[in-house]
C-alpha cells in the first residue's frame, strides 16, 4: 500500500481490507449443526449395515472436510486451518475420553447389581459353595457371599504398606533435599529410586515373598508362614517408596530457601527448621502425593497374589494367615468361579468388587485434593 493509494481512498464504504479489524465470522450454531448432521450420517450409515466404528470414522471425516471447506471459503486460509486443527484436537480428546466413559459405564451398570447382593459388604466367602451359586443361577436361591474379607485385606495391607513406606520415603527425600551435598551417594540414591520406579509389580511381589520365605527358612520355621498380609505390604512398599520419595522431594525443593534462611537467622537448629518450617510449608503436596501413592498401590493384583495368597475368610491380622484384597478377589472370582458351570453369580460379585475398588481409588484422589487445598499455605489475609 503506497501513500498515494492510501490518500486516494475517500469512500468509507471501501476500506482497505488490511486495515479492517472486524472480519467475517461464522455463526455460532454452524459447528453444532454440522456436528449434528455428522451424527445423523453416522446413524444412517449404521442402519444401512456399516459397522458402527467405521460409520463414526467416515462421518467424522466428512464433518472435518465440510467444516474446513466452509471455514476456508468464508474466513480465509489461516482461520480455516485453525478450525481444522481445533476439530482434530477436539476429536482426539473425545477419542481419549471414550475408553474412560466406557469403563465407568460398564463398571457402574454391572457393579451396582453386584453391590445390591444382600450382605455384600458384611459377609465373606466362607461357606459359599458351587451348589449354592448353581441354585442362585437357576433362580432357586438368593445369591450369597460378599467382599468383607477383601475389603478388610485391602485396608490392612495398604495401611501396613503406608506405615512402612511413608517414613522411609519421607526421610529419604529429606536427606536428599536438606542434608546431601549432591555427591556420589545422593546421586546413587536418586538413580536407585528411579530404577525402583520401573520395577514391575510382580517382581516386587516375588522379592517380598522370597525375602520373607528366606527369613522363615533361616530361622528354621515353615516357609508357609511367609504368606501373609505383611509380606504383601512389603511388596507394595517397594512400589510405593519411590513414588513417595519423588513427590516429597519435588515438594521440599519448591520450599523457598528464604524461609530456611529466615529460620536459621532466628537461631533455629536445622532439624527444627526442617520439622517446623520446611515440612509444614510443603505438607499439602506431601500429603496429596502420599494419598495418590496409596491409591496407586491399592489396585495392585499380582504382587498380592504371590505374597498374601487367596482367602475366603475375613482376616484382620496382617501378621498371620492368608489375606484377600479387592483386586485379587476380582481376579479370583473371574478366573476361578465358585461354580465353574455357572459363573454368573461370581461375575456379579467381581463387578461389585470392581465398583467398590474404583470408588475407593476415587475417594482417595478426592481426599488428596482436599488435603492439598486444606493445608496449602494461606495466600491472603487482608
Amino acid at each position: 500500500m503506497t501513500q498515494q493509494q492510501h490518500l486516494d481512498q475517500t469512500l468509507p464504504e471501501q476500506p482497505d481490507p488490511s486495515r479492517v479489524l472486524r472480519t467475517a465470522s461464522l455463526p455460532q450454531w454452524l459447528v453444532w449443526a454440522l456436528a449434528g448432521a455428522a451424527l445423523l450420517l453416522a446413524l444412517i450409515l449404521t442402519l444401512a449395515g456399516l459397522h458402527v466404528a467405521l460409520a463414526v470414522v467416515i462421518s467424522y471425516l466428512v464433518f472435518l472436510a465440510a467444516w474446513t471447506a466452509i471455514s476456508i471459503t468464508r474466513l480465509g486460509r489461516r482461520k480455516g486451518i485453525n478450525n481444522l486443527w481445533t476439530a482434530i484436537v477436539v476429536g482426539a480428546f473425545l477419542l481419549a475420553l471414550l475408553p474412560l466413559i466406557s469403563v465407568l459405564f460398564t463398571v457402574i451398570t454391572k457393579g451396582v447389581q453386584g453391590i445390591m447382593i444382600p450382605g455384600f459388604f458384611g459377609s465373606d466367602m466362607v461357606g459359599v459353595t458351587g451348589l449354592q451359586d448353581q441354585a442362585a443361577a437357576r433362580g432357586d436361591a438368593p445369591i450369597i457371599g460378599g467382599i468383607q474379607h477383601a475389603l478388610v485385606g485391602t485396608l490392612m495391607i495398604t495401611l501396613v504398606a503406608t506405615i512402612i513406606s511413608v517414613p522411609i520415603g519421607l526421610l529419604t527425600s529429606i536427606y536428599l533435599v536438606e542434608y546431601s551435598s549432591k555427591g556420589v551417594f545422593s546421586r546413587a540414591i536418586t538413580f536407585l529410586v528411579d530404577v525402583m520406579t520401573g520395577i514391575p509389580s510382580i517382581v516386587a511381589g516375588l522379592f517380598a515373598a522370597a525375602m520373607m520365605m528366606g527369613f522363615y527358612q533361616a530361622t528354621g520355621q515353615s516357609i508357609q508362614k511367609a504368606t501373609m498380609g505383611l509380606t504383601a505390604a512389603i511388596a507394595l512398599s517397594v512400589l510405593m517408596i519411590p513414588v513417595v520419595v519423588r513427590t516429597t522431594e519435588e515438594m521440599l525443593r519448591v520450599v523457598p530457601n528464604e524461609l530456611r534462611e529466615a529460620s536459621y537467622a532466628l537461631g533455629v537448629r536445622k532439624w527444627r527448621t526442617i520439622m517446623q518450617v520446611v515440612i509444614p510449608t510443603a505438607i499439602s503436596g506431601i500429603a496429596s502425593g502420599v494419598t495418590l501413592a496409596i491409591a496407586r498401590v491399592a489396585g495392585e493384583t499380582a504382587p498380592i497374589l504371590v505374597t498374601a495368597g487367596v482367602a475366603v475368610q475375613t482376616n484382620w491380622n496382617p501378621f498371620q494367615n492368608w489375606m484377600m484384597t479387592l483386586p485379587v478377589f476380582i481376579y479370583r472370582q473371574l478366573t476361578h468361579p465358585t461354580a465353574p458351570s455357572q459363573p454368573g453369580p461370581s461375575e456379579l460379585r467381581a463387578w461389585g468388587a470392581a465398583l467398590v475398588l474404583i470408588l475407593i481409588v476415587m475417594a482417595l484422589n478426592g481426599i488428596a485434593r482436599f488435603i492439598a487445598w486444606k493445608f496449602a499455605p494461606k495466600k491472603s489475609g487482608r
Partner: protein
Amino acid sequence: MSTRIDARNVDVYYGDFHAVEGVSLVMEPRTVTAFIGPSGCGKTTFLRTINRMHEVIPGAYATGEILINDQNIYATGVDPVDVRTMVGMVFQRPNPFPTMSIKDNVLAGYKLNGKKLSASQADDIVEKALRGANLWTEVKDRLGLPGSGLSGGQQQRLCIARAIAVEPDVLLMDEPCSALDPISTLAIEDLIHELKETFTIVIVTHNMQQATRVSDKTGFFNIQGVGLPGHLVEFDTTEKIFSNPRDEATERYVSGQFG
C-alpha cells in the same frame, strides 16, 4: 547493652572462590553502619559472616576473627546457632513464614526453638516487638491472620519484629528496602533510627541517600575485576565518606560516576 563488633582480617571463600579479602573494621555499640558498593563486591557476603549465615551455602567458609562482645564467633567450639540468637537478620525480600499467623511469625524465634511461653508472656512479646517495628497499630486487630496477607512494607516490618522479638544484640539488614516503595522505605528508615537506641545495626544498601539518612558510619566495598575478591576500600564516618572521601574510587562511586 553495648555490643561492639570487631572484624579482624576477615576473608570469605565460596569453595575455591575467594569472595571477600582482608576486611578489618570496628562497629561501635548503638550505631548504624552502612555498607555500600557495586553489585558482587562482597557486601552481603561479609554481612552474612557476622552471624555465620554464609555457612548455609555449601562450601562457604571464612577465616580471620569477628569479635562480638570480645568473643570470637569463629573460635573453635562456637555453635553458629548460638551466634545467630545473638545476631538477628532481616533479608532483602520479606520472608514471613507462610504457614503462620502474624502473631506466630513474631513468636517464631521462640516457637521454632520449642520454648514454652505463657499466654501473657507471648502477648507481651508480640506487642513489644510489633510496637518496636512500628506495626502494632496496623495489625493489632488481625494478629491471627496469615502474615503473607500483609503488604510488602508491612511484611518487611513483620520480619523486623520477628528478628527483634528474640532480643538480639546486633541486627543485620541486607538491603531491607530494595523491594519496597518510598513510603514503606521511609517507615523502615524511621524504624532504624529508633532501633539503634537498643541494637547495633549493620545495613547493606544500594541506595546512597539511604546510607546518608540512616547510618553513622559507612564502609565502601569494591572489586578490582571479575573473579577477584571484593575488599573494603574505605571505612569512615558517613559524613566523611560522602563529603570528603580519602579514596578516589569512593569519591567516584558516591558521586555517581560509576557503579
